[in-house]
Every structure is written in structure tokens, then in C-alpha cells.
């Protein structure tokens, strides 16, 4: 993976010193809270419901064992011994003291990490496919591109005070695991007919208050044009993007109001000017970055132990069925570690669990870890012969839950258990759904199903692209949950359709249960997923299951 050069190290170190001085000045009264707030937000420090929260960037979700161990150390030393992995592949600490934050930032800087640009109206952490560099279906590892964008966008003076926040996501596969169509800019690495590698550029996607699917701005952008083209997009957004209304300030609204054709025309025009300003150094840099992401030195040993365990151990077989994905090297596999043990908080990992994952990565996964936007942890390169050992070690610390892609593998934002913006709780809903379907022993029968829960309209829990989405709202001082159906966050991205009136906190779990039983009755065969059944039949039979009283009234 990429290691900081002297420039990166100096920059991050200077920011730590700078923030330490800013905290001192806030505490001694030289800075008011109004003056201090934008400074702390630039360093990822929020004030939440019960405490401060520090959001730490994990660029394109990639960690090594040293970084993961340091995250565990920070959790133990300055927080409550755990961290929360987020839908933007970051980690959040929920209980830091203001006076400890400079030390936390120093500890991060010591392992080439920081929390810069994890808040504010700037270009945020660049996310990528969590199987990057390992996926069997990928044209190219998207992380060098993401790293180039990280370097370009970090502290970029022209884009430090945009109209609103701005999010990039990159994938190197046709199968989109990075939800690129729900980002301000989505990039897909692809090869054209001439065999050249470049990018499909999407713009104007986003969830939140006004969900939109990204539109194709350029079908094929030559590799060397990436930065000038992105710069042109940012400049056009900076010029046309609305600043009169926060809720209409994201680029999705700019694209929607101006039309993709006009945006394209302006971007292409600006791009010509920007391209002339790039002398090719970015491509020299890109070549260096690419080397840092070279494939690991694969082991050449046999996979007998793996095959034997598959035959002899049904629990291991179940784990393999759900948590293992195909690696580009047939002797290897991608192991997903679920942070969704039934009844636990989605995305939370204790410091002990972080250390075990770090140890396993170091011993058995070429020292690489990934955080997925689905709030799980990935060991991207595990030789098949090591999977039984990895599984056994994960089991010891409650990390071997075999539920990746199933009903209990739920994305849930922190919601009103932590977040100051939330209008309702998310986590307890996820906990109860997972626990309920575990009791019913239906999870594996139900099969692939993505439930995504947001505790407010900002949609950090991606509910619009959940096969079943749940949005928690405050209705006259009471928690109320709206269901959306048929959303999809893949290359076939679709915004879910609202099913009808919301449900109270006590009604939402029974409502989900009715929905699932309806699906089990309606599907043509066990292999037909919830989403496929929904697409075949439409919303009507599912709405009937959700609102039986309406159906009775209609009859």
C-alpha cells in the first residue's frame, strides 16, 4: 500500500501541531466556539449528542496491521475501547475528550493517518471498491486512482470551501461494490476497444433529501486526463452550484437544474483550459503510486487443508458460503469479516477484535485489510489453505458470523443513539431485525437481502439503495419509520420506492417480518432473491403485506 513521503508526513504533522495550538486557544478563551467550530470540523471533530466524535479517514478503506493496531490503541487510550466503522469506509470514535484529541491526531500521524477533510464543505475521503486489488472481476485496482485523487484533493486551496461537501468513489469492476452511482463523482476504470485503460465518469449522484442516480458525463476519459477533467468538474460546480439553499447545494441539484448536456458542455470547455495547465507530472506521480499497490507476492502452496475442512466442518462450510468471495488468484480467496454479529451494533469493533484482525492480516493476508462501506472488514488476500485457521481465530473473538449479504448484514448509521442530526434511532432497529430472524432461523433460507437503515433524511445509512430501506423520522415527537422497497446500490443502481405510511418503533420489526414472509410465499424458487421477486411482481403484493388493514378495507 501507499506509504507517506516526506511531503505527506510534514503536512500531516504540521496539522497536528496547528490543531494542538487551536485547542489550547479554545480552552484558554482566545477563540470563541464560533471561531473554533470550523477549525475542529476541518479536523473531523464533531460535537454529538453525548460527547465529541472524531472521524478518522481511512483512504479507500485500506489499512495494514500497524494502522489497525494503532486504531485499537487509540480506542483503548482515549476512548471507550471500541471504534465504529462507517459507510464511508472511515472509523469514528464516539467518546474523545477535547483535550485528548491532539494526542489522538499525533498517534494517527505516527502511522500515516489523519482526520483531515472528514467534515466540512470540501472533497471528502475518496472511497473505493473494498475488494480492490483482489477481485476476480476487476479491470484494474482502483486504489492508485483513488490515491492520486486523495493527493490532488487534500488541502486543495480552490476546493476547500465548496458550496457543500463533495464525495468521490472509484471502482475497477463492472460489478459496482462502491455505490459509485450515488456519489457526487463516480469513476469506473474500464478498457476501450483499443485496449486503452481510462474512466467512465459519472456525476450528480447522491442520496439524502433528494436522492439521484449519477449520470454519465464522459463514457471514456483517457487516463492522463483524469485530474484536469476532475478539476474542470469542480470548477463548474463551484461556479454554478447553489449557495442560497443548503438543501440544494450538492452537485446533483446543479446537474438536475442545469441538465447534464449543459454541464457536459461547460466541463468539456473548461477541461481544455485545465489540461493545458498539467505538464504530465501527475502521470509520473501516478506511475509511482501504482507501484505501491503492486499485487502481493503470492504463496505457491497447495489448498488441501481448505478442501478437507470444507468436507468435515459444516459451520466452516457455512462461513465459506457467505463470507468468501472469488479472488483473481484461484488459490486465494477474499475473506469478509462480519461486524454484524446478531444483536451487536453494526460496524462496531472492540480494540481486542481490531488487534486480532491486524494479527490475521499480518500472518495470513499479506498485511492488508479493507473496510467496506457495508461496515465490515475484509482480508483481501488469504491463501485458501489458511482460511480454516483464520476462521478458527475469528470465532474466538466473535468475528466469525456467517451472514455477509444476508438479512442481518445491515447497514445502519449511528442514528439518535449518537448523532446530533438524527431524527430517530437506527441501531436498535438493526439489532432487533438481526436477532428476530436469527430466532426464526430463516436467514439462510431468505438468502441475499440488503436492509439499510438511516436515522434521518441525510441517508448516511444508504436506505434509498437498500432492497429494503428504513428511514427513521420524528413525527410529532415520536419515532416513525418509513419503508422503501426495491432499491439497489450496484451497477443497476435504483432508488427504492416508498411503500406507504411509516411505522412506529414497536411496529417496524413486525412489519419487516410480514414483508419477508410475503417474499417467501411469492418467490418462484429459493434462488429468486427478494429484489428479483420485487422486480418481477412490483410493489403491490409487498404493500399488501405491509398494510393488511388497507387490503381488508379495499375488499
Amino acid at each position: 500500500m501507499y506509504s507517506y513521503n516526506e511531503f505527506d508526513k510534514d503536512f500531516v504533522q504540521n496539522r497536528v501541531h496547528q490543531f494542538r495550538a487551536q485547542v489550547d486557544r479554545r480552552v484558554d478563551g482566545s477563540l470563541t466556539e464560533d471561531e473554533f467550530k470550523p477549525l475542529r470540523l476541518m479536523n473531523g471533530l464533531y460535537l454529538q449528542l453525548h460527547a465529541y466524535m472524531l472521524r478518522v479517514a481511512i483512504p479507500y478503506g485500506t489499512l495494514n496491521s500497524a494502522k489497525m493496531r494503532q486504531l485499537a490503541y487509540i480506542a483503548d487510550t482515549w476512548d471507550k475501547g471500541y471504534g465504529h466503522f462507517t459507510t464511508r469506509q472511515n472509523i469514528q470514535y464516539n467518546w474523545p475528550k477535547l483535550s485528548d484529541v491532539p494526542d489522538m491526531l499525533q498517534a494517527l500521524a505516527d502511522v500515516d493517518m489523519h482526520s483531515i477533510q472528514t467534515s466540512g464543505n470540501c472533497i471528502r475521503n475518496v472511497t473505493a471498491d473494498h475488494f480492490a486489488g483482489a477481485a476476480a472481476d476487476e479491470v484494474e485496482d482502483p486504489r492508485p486512482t483513488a490515491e492520486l485523487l486523495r493527493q490532488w484533493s487534500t488541502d486543495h486551496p480552490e476546493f476547500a470551501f465548496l458550496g457543500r461537501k463533495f464525495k468521490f468513489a472509484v471502482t475497477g469492476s463492472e460489478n459496482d461494490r462502491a455505490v459509485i452511482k450515488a456519489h457526487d463523482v463516480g469513476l469506473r476504470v474500464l478498457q476501450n476497444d483499443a485496449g486503452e485503460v481510462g474512466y467512465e465518469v459519472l456525476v450528480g449522484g447522491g442520496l439524502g433529501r433528494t436522492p439521484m442516480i449519477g449520470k454519465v458525463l464522459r463514457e471514456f476519459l483517457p487516463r492522463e486526463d483524469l485530474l484536469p477533467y476532475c478539476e474542470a468538474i469542480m470548477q463548474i460546480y463551484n461556479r454554478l452550484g447553489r449557495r442560497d439553499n443548503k438543501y440544494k447545494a450538492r452537485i446533483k441539484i446543479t446537474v438536475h437544474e442545469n441538465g447534464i448536456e449543459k454541464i457536459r458542455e461547460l466541463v468539456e470547455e473548461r477541461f481544455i483550459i485545465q489540461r493545458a495547465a498539467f505538464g504530465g507530472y501527475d502521470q509520473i506521480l501516478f506511475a509511482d503510486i501504482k507501484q505501491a499497490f503492486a499485487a502481493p507476492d503470492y504463496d505457491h502452496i497447495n489448498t488441501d487443508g481448505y478442501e478437507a475442512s470444507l468436507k468435515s466442518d459444516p459451520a466452516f462450510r457455512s462461513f465459506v458460503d457467505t463470507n468468501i468471495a472469488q479472488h483473481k488468484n484461484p488459490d486465494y480467496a477474499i475473506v469478509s469479516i462480519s461486524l454484524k454479529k446478531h444483536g451487536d451494533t453494526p460496524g462496531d469493533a472492540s480494540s481486542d477484535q481490531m488487534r486480532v484482525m491486524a494479527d490475521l492480516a499480518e500472518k495470513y493476508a499479506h498485511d492488508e485489510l479493507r473496510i467496506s462501506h457495508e461496515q465490515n472488514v475484509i482480508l483481501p488476500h488469504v491463501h485458501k489453505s489458511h482460511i480454516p485457521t483464520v476462521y478458527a481465530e475469528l470465532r474466538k473473538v466473535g468475528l466469525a458470523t456467517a451472514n455477509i449479504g444476508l438479512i442481518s448484514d445491515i447497514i445502519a448509521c449511528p442514528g439518535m443513539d449518537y448523532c446530533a442530526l438524527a431524527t430517530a434511532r437506527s441501531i436498535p432497529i438493526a439489532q432487533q431485525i438481526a436477532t428476530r430472524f436469527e430466532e426464526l432461523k430463516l436467514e439462510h433460507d431468505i438468502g441475499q437481502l440488503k436492509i439499510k437503515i438511516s436515522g434521518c433524511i441525510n441517508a448516511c445509512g444508504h436506505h434509498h439503495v437498500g432492497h429494503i430501506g428504513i428511514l427513521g423520522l420524528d413525527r410529532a415527537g415520536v419515532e416513525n419509520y418509513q419503508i422503501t422497497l426495491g432499491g439497489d446500490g450496484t451497477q443497476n443502481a435504483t432508488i427504492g420506492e416508498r411503500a406507504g405510511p411509516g411505522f412506529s418503533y414497536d411496529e417496524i420489526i413486525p412489519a419487516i417480518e410480514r414483508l419477508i414472509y410475503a417474499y417467501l410465499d411469492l418467490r418462484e424458487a429459493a434462488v429468486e432473491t427478494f429484489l428479483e421477486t420485487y422486480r418481477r411482481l412490483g410493489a403491490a403484493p409487498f404493500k399488501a403485506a405491509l398494510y393488511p388493514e388497507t387490503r381488508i378495507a379495499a375488499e
Partner: protein
Amino acid sequence: MARAFTPKVLTANRLIEGDVVYYGNNGDWVSSHDDALFLDDETQANELLAKSHKQADLLVGAYLADAILKDGKPVPTHFREEFRTRGPSNYEHGKQAEV
């Protein structure tokens, strides 16, 4: 027309620790909502809020939150404020585990 005043408690977070606190009966900032001063007088509520803004060395984000009186103690009327009295509901940690 301005909305009729409803009773309040004055709440904030501690500047350094971030903990939720309330302006107490005793004139200090206290952890327990039970010990918060019940403010049924609008002028007093606004005066205390203005005063709290001058305590920037102690506090951050002060505001008035709705409350009612129950068995002689102030009780939040909104679930958000109820969560702030004890901490997250996903499992017991935060304030509820420390009291």
C-alpha cells in the same frame, strides 16, 4: 404570533469532556436531569441561556430543552432529550453506565 412559552431546562455539553450537563437547582452545572432547574418563566430561561453563553470556558452548545414536572422533578418531553439524560440505547454505556 410568537409561540407560547413551554417550560424548559437549560442544557449544554462540557467543553473538555463533551458530557451532557444541565443548569442545576444549586446554580452549578450538573449531570443528572433530575437535578436540573425547572424553568417555567420565560424571562429567567432566556437570561440563564444568555449567561451560559458567557461560560465558553466551561460549556459548548447551550440551549433550552422542553421539560415537564413529574413527581417534583423535571422530565424531558422529547425522546432526543430523554436519550441525552442517559446515553445510547444500543447497549449500556456512556452516562448511564457511569452514574
